[in-house]
């Protein structure tokens, strides 16, 4: 019997109002780190149990303890200081980190969180890391003379974290590189840095994933197939699955992470439209080379919207599986 069409997540999940208020209170010094952490542990547990309940095959911890995907690692690594506020859009701002010395990892960053999440479920939990190219590209650099030196130091730091996760038992590790799609000319550098991270993982039999978004794919494709990972995860729903057309010209050679939920829209997709998207991908790839997930992390949605969207995702995949006789099975 065929298998595949595993359901998963890109990474972040929404924080509850209570957790958001606690984070602000902690930032203002009104509650302790331990008080905040108690809530983060509870929120992580809630999301793991929800994913298990609805039938997500490869789950995530939901990043309830992270803010910005780059600033989180920069604040945990050595060599960075917190920068001032930068506006990303409209009335939204983030603190862009500044590298002021050699960057590196003094201690594990996400390891304890991964172990905790995995202890709560029998399903595999993805290790979730931000890639070296993206951390460098989304930080200011006051220390390194070249971007390459900056990126390669970060690659070594991320590699240490990734190897720790693999040693602890993580069989799926995602290293997000959303910045690579914006400068195709720097793709070789991004690939070289990613190889530093994924080489030891592949030797340990880990399924590696990178997530790429918000870019001009027509400029980065098919060159992005040179990224040294098992799976490339792409947003599809918010561009009407246009990217699949690129695969007709240059076959997609990796395992595909198929984004079927628009994370920027409040509207909950219908199972029919998600099903149609999955079937379009099946015209080009066999089911055992497809993982189905939202376009991106769901943290910008409300918890209710995210739960509704994820239920639709699972329902649509179940329909296709039943129709094609694909048995539910653990992801490989």
């Amino acid at each position, binding site marked *: 019997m065929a298998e595949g069409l595993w359901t998963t997540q890109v990474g972040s999940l929404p924080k509850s109002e209570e957790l958001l208020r606690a984070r602000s209170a902690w930032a203002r010094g009104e509650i302790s780190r331990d008080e905040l952490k108690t809530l983060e542990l509870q929120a992580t547990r809630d999301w793991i149990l929800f994913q298990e309940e609805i039938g997500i095959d490869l789950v995530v911890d939901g990043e309830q303890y992270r803010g910005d995907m780059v600033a989180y690692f920069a604040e945990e690594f050595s060599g960075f200081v917190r*920068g*001032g506020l930068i*506006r990303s*859009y409209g*009335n939204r701002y983030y603190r862009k980190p500044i590298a002021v010395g050699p960057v590196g990892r003094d201690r594990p960053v996400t390891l304890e969180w991964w172990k905790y999440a995995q202890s709560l479920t029998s399903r595999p939990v993805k290790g979730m890391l931000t890639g070296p190219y993206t951390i460098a590209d*989304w930080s200011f650099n006051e220390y390194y003379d070249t971007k390459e030196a900056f990126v390669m130091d970060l690659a070594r730091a991320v590699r240490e974290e990734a190897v720790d996760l693999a040693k602890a038992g993580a069989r799926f590790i995602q290293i997000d590189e959303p910045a690579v799609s*914006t400068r195709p000319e720097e793709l070789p550098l991004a690939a070289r840095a990613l190889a530093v991270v994924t080489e030891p993982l592949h030797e340990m039999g880990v399924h590696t994933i990178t997530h790429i978004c918000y870019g001009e794919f027509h400029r980065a494709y098919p060159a992005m197939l040179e990224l040294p990972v098992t799976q490339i995860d792409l947003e599809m729903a918010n561009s009407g699955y246009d990217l699949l057309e690129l695969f007709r010209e240059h076959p997609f050679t990796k395992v595909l992470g198929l984004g079927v939920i628009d994370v920027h829209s409040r509207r909950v997709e219908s199972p029919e439209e998600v099903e149609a998207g999955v079937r379009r991908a099946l015209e080009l790839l066999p089911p055992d080379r497809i993982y189905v997930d939202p376009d991106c992390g769901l943290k910008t949605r409300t918890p209710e919207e995210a739960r509704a969207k994820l239920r639709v995702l699972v329902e649509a995949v179940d329909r296709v599986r039943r129709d094609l006789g694909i048995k539910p099975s653990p992801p490989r």
Partner: protein
Amino acid sequence: MLVTVVGSYPRVPHEGREFLLRRATEEHQSGRISDAELRQVQDEVVREVLREQAEVGVELATDGGVRWDDPQTAFAGRLAGVRLDGLVRYFDNNVYFRQPVVEGPLEWRGPVLVEDFIFARRESPVAVKAVLVGPFTLACLSQDLFYGDLRELTLAYARALHSEVVELERAGAGVIQVDEPSLLRSPEQLPLVREALEVVFGGVSATTACCTFFGDASRLGPDLFELPVRFIGLDLVSGPRGWELLEAVPPEKGVALGLVDARNTRLEREEEVAEAIERAVGVIGEERVWVNPSAGLEFLPREKAREKLALLARAAARVRGRGG
């Protein structure tokens, strides 16, 4: 020589000061304060940004675009025929804009930026220029569901911009600039950009400028100076090979040189910036040189934006002190 800016300026307050604009914008979005109340808060930020530029030595300032969500939608979003869609990354920056979707014929329905310009001009201690996104870049950053042709869309934006530019000039704008970063990604479209800017600036007697940034302008070659504007902006940080073009500046044109990095916090050395200015002045003379950061300053924290401008102004003063 003029010390100027490319356009945007951080609306974030200095460290330790209350972020009134952020709160007012939230309150406005949730309907708790009126348009007029939000505008008052924005007015105060514009005054502060104008004062700050003048204090550090900028001689031709902007209002920093602090009222806008992003520069594209500030203009295109107000035209008939345009709907605003999801967020798209702004070039290779970790910054986003709402993508304009062109669904029907573009139509200018009345002045968009004139009121803001008049306010800035009245409040600024120094001269103020009006800055708009150019027609080609607007076309490239839009999704076209109507014209089906890049040239048609570019020229339609150019006609709308022309109507705005005429109003800006009538309102007293002595310097009007359009930004065309997309040209650096499609150098083969230079003839189209030239044609479109002829439409935008036809019959205009203000000093005109076209800034390019986020890339290397040298690929365009000396033909770049055929653009029908008085000043052409080069980002010499992203594209240091742009220096090669300096020898080719025709006598009736000037250049706006992007000399300090608007996208990294590392401060340049003042002496090196002064040497760069001196080099440019040596080639084409002081009259035809503007100096500015490599792009809009909103990519930097507020403190760094101010420091970079101050450094640039000090470097320019050193060159003037040497007698050019």
